[in-house]
């Protein structure tokens, strides 16, 4: 039993291992600091040349055409347009799916539907992008002849399908966490299954449902490949889903596909746009986390 001897060599080894494990834990802080430092330093260079007011309030985005203009609102407009369109599909359909799975479905239906939705959730975004380009866009173009090769609608539909499993599975978790006693009390005073589902379970699970909605919207805002492939590269202030737009993420891809040299203003726009994207998604994720904690506490 030599192994268990508490010799000084093994004590040194123990401390070394502890230090190593601590280092790998601390690496996550390094990653976060890295993201913030990288985004901030290059953005500062950008804001030395472009005023933050012009960046945040300007309505013309044309970083490579003279006269140059760095108003990010058209990109934000594109991002929000696609996110809103996809939410229009994913939120109601996802919530209805969650209600069905948690309140109505037989165990057998649950066992087939849930894995199917999990597969949908595991499909890479580039596959969804292919789906948008080769299937959804042609269908849209037959229905609406004015639609071009790129449209916000095509991206919104496909992103909606992409974030649907996230809404349904997280909302279902929230509904299933509502204590059975609440349902039984409602049945006890004569409520129907429909009334129990919509007037008791859904309101009780609302913070969890809201958390899933916010997370899904954050995911839609961060989505890159589908919007690059299907929505195009035409930044503009429009609410017309049938037109080509450009999102913040698609712009980042566009710049990185070109060969922008380090230190150029074009290279720096990448970080300024990235910083805004990072802040928006971070705010949404924190909000969603707060909702989830509050939800958990309400049933303790």
């Amino acid at each position, binding site marked *: 039993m030599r192994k*268990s001897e508490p010799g000084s060599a093994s004590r040194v080894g123990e401390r070394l291992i502890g230090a190593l494990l601590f280092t790998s834990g601390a690496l996550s802080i390094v990653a*976060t600091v890295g993201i913030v430092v990288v985004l901030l330093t290059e953005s500062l260079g950008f804001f030395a040349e472009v005023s933050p007011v012009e960046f945040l309030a300007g309505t013309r985005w044309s970083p490579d055409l003279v006269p140059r203009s760095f108003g990010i609102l058209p990109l934000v407009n594109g991002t929000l347009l696609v996110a809103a369109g996809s939410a229009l599909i994913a939120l109601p359909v996802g919530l209805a799916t969650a209600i069905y799975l948690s309140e109505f479905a037989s165990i057998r239906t649950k066992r087939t539907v849930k894995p199917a939705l999990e597969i*949908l959730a595991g499909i890479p975004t580039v596959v969804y*992008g292919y789906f948008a380009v080769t299937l959804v866009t042609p269908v849209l173009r037959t229905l609406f002849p004015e639609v071009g090769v790129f449209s916000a609608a095509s991206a919104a539909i496909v992103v909606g399908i992409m974030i649907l499993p996230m809404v349904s599975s997280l909302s279902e978790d929230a509904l299933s966490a509502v204590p059975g006693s609440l349902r039984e009390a409602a049945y006890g005073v004569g409520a129907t299954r429909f009334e129990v589902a919509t007037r008791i379970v859904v309101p009780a699970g609302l913070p969890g449902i809201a958390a899933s909605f916010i997370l899904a919207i954050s995911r839609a805002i961060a989505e890159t490949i589908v919007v690059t492939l299907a929505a195009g590269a035409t930044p503009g202030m429009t609410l017309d889903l049938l037109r080509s737009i450009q999102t913040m993420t698609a712009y980042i891809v566009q710049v990185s596909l070109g060969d922008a040299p380090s230190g150029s203003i074009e290279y720096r726009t990448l970080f300024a746009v990235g910083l805004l994207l990072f802040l928006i998604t971070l705010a949404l994720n924190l909000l969603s986390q707060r909702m989830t904690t509050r939800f958990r506490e309400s049933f303790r």
Partner: protein
Amino acid sequence: MNPGALRGGRFDTRLEARRRAGVRFMWLCRLAVAFGVASLVVLLVSLAADGLPALSFEFLASYPSRFPERAGIRSAILGSAWMLALVAVMSFPLGVGAALYLEEYAPTNRFTTLLKTNIANLASVPSIVYGILGLAVFVRFLALERSLLAGAATLSLLVLPIVNIAAREAIRAVPDSLREAAYALGATRWQAIRHHVLPAAMPGILSGTILGLSRAGGETAPLLVIGALTFIAFDPLSPMDPFTALPIQIFNWTTDPRGEFHALAAGAIVVLLGVLLMMNAAAILIRNRFER
């Protein structure tokens, strides 16, 4: 009997109307479920229809080409394989190490809470932001250029929180009695972990790692940002070589306006999805096998 006849007095239950509203609502919900399932079916069927005819030995063994009939995914498959191996080598020890620290060593204090919230937030940072980080740090600052190593390091940062969270769950599920039994026999902390906690948690850790790797295998955006969209018609032989990967090749062919290349993209998607689904199935199998 007319159900309306039952109405009267204060007990206006309108049961029939309420029941009908319920049935209508249930069908609406069924429609929603059908939408999700139908989307999956349409996606898989159209992919199979477009992609299966493109599959052939030549397709798997050829390099990309300007001519659709000669183009293949050899360099993309090799690039993805290299990428997954490198990501595994980097993210597994770091992710599991951090998980062991947080679950077995870390004191309950502010710093530990900070670490945990930080990791949870890193897991939801948009993948394209990791691409920007990789571009600035690995490609430019460390001058790794557009190498496999730069790509793998970027993707490792992306999957580290996933591996870490899965590993922590697996380690937390190991009963304390195992640790206490080891300590009672005089084991040091590391000996208890090395010989008892880790083996017991390994199935969960492995399945989480495989799921993280399958995420890395399908990622496109970070690789695009670090500049991996290039024409690669040779085998990558070292981590410092430039590379392409399956998602990049699919992206490239999907952007091609010529329809012939869409069929190639579908073929590559069938290969990619086949590999990813097998990895996911393996992860589930490992978990079920060892879970009681």
